[in-house]
């Protein structure tokens, strides 16, 4: 085992990811080589520093709200699943009748003249999409959240405002 070998293996050694014979060989080398021993200690110190910093931050977190929020989300999941199960439980006869009715509607629709197709693809409409056609005020800022399209018009309370 040379210093170059240890340099290559020191991470796996520190992480106990080496097979036992190799682990032992690295340990023996480091015991007799101050440079390699320093490399091993350096990784140990790094481990302690990183762990200490992150754990201190986690200790400052208040996790009391986690379960209530998760439980509320689980309620929504269960409600959606329950609705899906009820929808699937439509009796066969009713399902058959629905199928016949749907076929009749489809046949009637297809018998009509279809309107000209809009060449532009339909835009995906976001649930809170808002178009601002006119906006007046002082010190206003506008932001939109991309996922839902939620728009906020923000005004600075102290300097904003127009005369009525």
């Amino acid at each position, binding site marked *: 085992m040379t210093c170059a070998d240890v340099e290559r293996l020191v991470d796996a050694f520190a992480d106990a990811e080496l097979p036992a014979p190799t682990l032992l060989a690295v340990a023996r080398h480091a015991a007799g080589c101050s440079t390699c021993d320093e490399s091993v200690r350096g990784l140990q110190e790094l481990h302690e520093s990183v762990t200490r910093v992150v754990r201190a931050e986690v200790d400052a977190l208040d996790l009391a*709200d986690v379960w*209530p*929020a998760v439980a*509320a989300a689980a309620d929504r999941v269960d409600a959606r699943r329950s609705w899906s199960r009820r929808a699937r439980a439509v009796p066969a006869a009713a399902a058959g009748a629905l199928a016949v009715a749907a076929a009749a509607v489809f046949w009637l629709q297809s018998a009509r003249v279809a309107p000209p197709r809009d060449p532009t693809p339909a835009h995906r*409409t*976001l*649930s*809170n*999409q*808002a*178009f*601002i*056609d*006119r*906006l*007046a*005020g002082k010190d*206003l800022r506008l*932001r939109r*959240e991309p*996922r*839902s*399209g*939620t*728009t*906020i*018009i*923000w*005004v*600075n*309370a*102290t300097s*904003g*405002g*127009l*005369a*009525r």
Partner: protein
Amino acid sequence: MNRAAVALGMMGAALSIAAAVALGMEVQVVSVRAAERGPSDAELQPLRGRLRRLVGYRSFRVVQQERRQCSWRNTEEFRIPGGRSLRVLPKGMQDEAVMMQVRLLDGRRRLVDTDVRLRNRGTMLLGVGRQAGRADGALIIMLKAEAQ
């Protein structure tokens, strides 16, 4: 007799149409106090991430809410905390969106005056920043409109 019946029928139909038109839309206005720290109301938990991304605050508490039927072309005024008011004038529908004029007033000052087309059953927000000398955070007004 037939004419009377027809006239009655037409009047009934006209009344139904008038009633439907007069329904207009339902507006819900929720005033939320936003702060840098502190708990959030349970009903706002699902929105907390989205609100935080939009406004940067992390605590949200409902301080006032009101739901009201509004007729088309009639202005409704909602009281907002801090001596403010929100005036909503529903104008009609266009392509699944509710058209309305929205004004946020602070006493006599017009803070926001906007014409907006909001997706039916959608929500838009107005925010009023913290006032100097007040430690009670900012105000977010959630406006939801649903055509009837």
